[in-house]
């Protein structure tokens, strides 16, 4: 190359032509940068929407997120009370926390500048430290972009036309593939565990199912629930009410997953083989249990594992109490309960059937011969409708009607049935009546959306062409000359809102209507029957309204007498609460007798 490379010297000088041009930088802070609509800057957290599930903390591989408690946030069911605090010395602004936030509360903003001499200022609690940033949300995750899987695997069920012909199970249960997919959705936050009366290890067993280890799942499930297959079919599933995914989508089908896992063990032997619980050496203590319902069975099973000599006294010929005689077989088949009880018997639980305490054996005999007594007697008597001619033939209580149906008998209800009530039991009565071939009308005082029954059950009833008559108040039974029901008179109601409470039904005067029917089933609630208790015990037993008063150990005001289930005030009247009572009493009895 020549030293006189003129072109090579002069051409670069064309750069000089740029000198008069506008710069393409901006003069900060007089001018502001145009920031992307999805800029990944500092976070903002909607503190009210956030449920403290901690999924952001879990996904963050930089350990930049800590879940901390804030003075202004109190925990509640479905909200751990914790909120994310972010260390911006560690955050890499990847926004995975945003993409996995199930509630959509955590987002990123277009804020990215912070100057401070104090390094601790970079520990920020989004939403609390920068409430104004709510107007600058940029990187967010909507239902489409979120990494959460919001849609539940649908449960297959029998066709409505087909299922009213028999008592075959309506829900067919997940198959293996469905269960794996559904289990995969769980984010293991544990909010469910907190809200479950028994505090079952839900994330753990779902994880086992997701990992295709069903046996591990069964083992985990039986750790604190002895009737999980029942819960896997008919539980009120408060766990699902607080599932992190239900804030924006559908809750994980915790109940169906439990049902899937537990039905893998086909018989009592298989359960024993898989669960292989640790059984303590027998001790010298005896515990008497009254009632083989969920509460009594639970107390019996876990005490038997701890080496106690357990005897359960049951008035009926089959175990299960209300889950056997109250829940229809299309929801919970006979064999399913029997299988679980057979397993408990294998573990040393003795049950005396057809033994009504107070008649076949006295309460005192049990009490005196036992080191502790647990009473899980349930609610056996029905509340009456309190209307004229209620004593007519053909007026049933739900307990009586379902008891007969579940015992395999065919109650004589004729062709047209009116069921009164709006809870799960009333829906059960309607759907059972349908299966006996009746045309069913269900009278409820309030609107359908006010019904306390499980929406899934209401939907099932509607599919089966059960005529729900909302806002109707029964006023009298109409009977024929033989004293048999031939109809029911009711008033229509309008909903009146008062104060802040839910609207109240008020009868519309002059709206009397008569519906013809062959039977009326009253399903408006049950109460306990304490006739089994001798007078001196009954007098001393402290009550709260009509329920037995117990402390948190489920100990009554009588020494060494524990109680649980529907007859105590604790919790809602459902099977899982009864199991929780039985489990809590187990621990208390063990502590009382063994000191541990």
């Amino acid at each position, binding site marked *: 190359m020549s030293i006189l490379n003129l072109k090579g010297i002069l051409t670069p000088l064309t750069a000089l032509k740029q000198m008069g041009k506008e710069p393409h930088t901006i003069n900060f802070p007089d001018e502001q940068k145009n920031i992307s*609509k999805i800029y990944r800057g500092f976070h903002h957290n909607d503190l009210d929407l956030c449920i403290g599930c901690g999924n952001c903390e879990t996904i963050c591989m930089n350990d930049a997120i800590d879940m901390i408690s804030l003075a202004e946030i109190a925990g509640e069911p479905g909200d751990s009370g914790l909120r994310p605090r972010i260390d911006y010395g560690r955050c890499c602004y990847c926004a995975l926390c945003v993409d996995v936030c199930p509630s959509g509360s955590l987002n990123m903003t277009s804020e990215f500048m912070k100057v401070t001499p104090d390094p601790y200022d970079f520990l920020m609690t989004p939403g609390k430290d920068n409430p104004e940033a709510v107007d600058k949300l940029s990187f967010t995750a909507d239902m489409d972009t979120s990494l959460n899987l919001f849609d539940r695997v649908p449960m297959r069920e029998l066709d409505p036309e087909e299922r009213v012909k028999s008592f075959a199970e309506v829900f067919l249960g997940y198959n293996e593939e469905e269960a794996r997919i559904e289990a995969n959705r769980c984010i293991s936050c544990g909010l469910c565990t907190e809200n479950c009366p028994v505090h079952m290890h839900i994330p753990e067993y779902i994880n086992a199912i997701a990992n295709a280890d069903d046996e591990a799942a069964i083992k985990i499930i039986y750790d604190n629930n002895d009737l999980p297959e029942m819960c896997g079919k008919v539980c009120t599933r408060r766990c699902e009410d607080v599932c992190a995914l239900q804030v924006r989508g559908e809750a994980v089908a915790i109940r169906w997953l439990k049902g899937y896992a537990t039905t893998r063990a086909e018989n009592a032997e298989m359960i024993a083989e898989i669960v292989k619980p640790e059984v303590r050496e027998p001790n010298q203590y005896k515990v008497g249990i009254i009632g083989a319902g969920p509460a009594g069975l639970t107390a019996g099973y876990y005490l038997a594992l701890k080496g106690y000599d357990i005897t359960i006294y049951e008035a009926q010929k089959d175990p299960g109490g209300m889950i056997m005689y109250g829940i229809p077989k299309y929801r919970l088949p006979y064999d399913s309960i029997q299988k679980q009880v057979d397993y408990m018997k294998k573990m040393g639980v003795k049950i005396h059937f057809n033994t009504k305490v107070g008649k076949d054996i006295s309460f005192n005999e049990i009490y005196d011969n036992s080191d502790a007594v647990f009473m899980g007697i349930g609610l056996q008597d029905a509340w009456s409708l309190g209307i004229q001619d209620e004593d007519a033939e053909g007026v049933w209580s739900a307990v009586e009607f379902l008891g007969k149906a579940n015992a395999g008998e065919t109650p004589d209800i004729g062709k047209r049935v009116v069921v009164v009530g709006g809870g799960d039991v009333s829906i059960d009565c309607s759907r059972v009546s349908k299966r006996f071939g009746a045309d069913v009308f269900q009278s409820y005082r309030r609107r359908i959306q006010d019904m306390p029954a499980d929406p899934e059950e209401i939907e099932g009833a509607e599919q089966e062409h059960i005529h729900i008559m909302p806002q109707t108040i029964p006023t009298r039974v109409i009977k024929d000359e033989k004293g048999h029901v031939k109809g029911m008179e009711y008033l229509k109601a309008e909903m009146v809102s008062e104060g802040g409470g839910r609207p109240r039904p008020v009868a519309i005067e002059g709206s009397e209507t008569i519906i013809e029917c062959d039977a009326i089933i009253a399903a408006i609630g049950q109460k306990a029957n304490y006739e089994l208790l001798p007078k001196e015990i009954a007098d001393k037993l402290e009550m709260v309204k009509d329920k037995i008063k117990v402390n948190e150990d489920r100990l009554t005001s009588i020494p060494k007498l524990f109680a649980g289930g529907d007859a105590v005030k604790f919790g809602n009247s459902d099977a899982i609460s009864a199991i929780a009572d039985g489990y809590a009493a187990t621990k208390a009895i063990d502590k009382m007798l063994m000191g541990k």
Partner: protein
Amino acid sequence: MTREKETTLYLGPQHPGITGNMMIKLKVSGDTVVSAETHLGYLHRAFEKLIERRNWLQSFTILCRFCVPEPDPIELSYALAVEKLEGRAVPERADYIRTIVAELARIQSFLLWYGGQSGSGGLYTLGQWSVGDRNYILDLFEDLTGARIYHMFMWPGGVRRDLPEGWVDKAYRTMDYLEKRLDDYNKLLFDNAIFQKRAQGVGIIPKDKALEWGVVGPPLRGTGIKHDVRIDEPYAAYDKIDFEVPTYEGGDVWARALVRRDEIKQSINIIRQALDNMPGGSYYNRIPNPMKWTVPAGNAWAKTESVRGEIGFYLVSDGSNKPRRAHLRGAAYAHGISVLEKILPGENIADVSFILNSLGVCPPEMER
């Protein structure tokens, strides 16, 4: 003739002419390099080991740290490897978006290289221009991904977000602008007598040794060997796009620079075609819940043509929710150690940084 004394000279680990924290131990005699030895260890963060401790999705946020100036091809290689393991399909739209992102990444990285290459040759104006223009590409990235440098955008199954409204037009405009600027760059660098004198015949990689030494990318194409993963084993949407792979003979800094210059033009061409033919539909084939996402046992190797040449990810899965082993084969390891040590002897000390810049050496990628 008296033999001059050999002196040991440590270039780096912190030195403006070094492309990251690494050190070259030079033995010099006068101004001439007698031998060179690359020393690493200043940046080691055990990326590959860290990946083993993270689940399949979490890993993707550290992938971009392998190489600051071009994080995207590494993300893409990882995503391709996971998809191979899983047999996960990628929507066509995602393939096109990936192609655009990969080419934008190429252009912005070359613009940064312009700065490094010209700066280490003593020409500073071009660097300021090209790094300024690079920001227009970063603006596109910011609009598309939410971040300018570490995009964390191409994950298994597709891309993270769809093209935002107005983005396509902005991308066309940016391409038009850049195309015009390339002439100015040309005048400042390739027509410049200083650059010509310093680049021609310097840092020669012999054509017959290039493949043996593991040279890839522009340095390989600068020896006249036409090798490009985008053509040889197309991924993303490259098989549906018409483009050329420029090659130059010579194997010196000059040839490598010419390859890069021409590749920017090709990248603009590729981006335009991808924008023209952008299919509709989904941009993302959803992965399962990342917390419980397991990948079938097996191993997979996926490679892409990064800015610096072929890079590949090797992943081994034992069927769990974390990779059992992850390994990155990048261009920098061969270029920065074996090639550099072989071609430096005989060169002038002043050209060491100049040659280093022309090889595309990214120290964090060597220290995986």
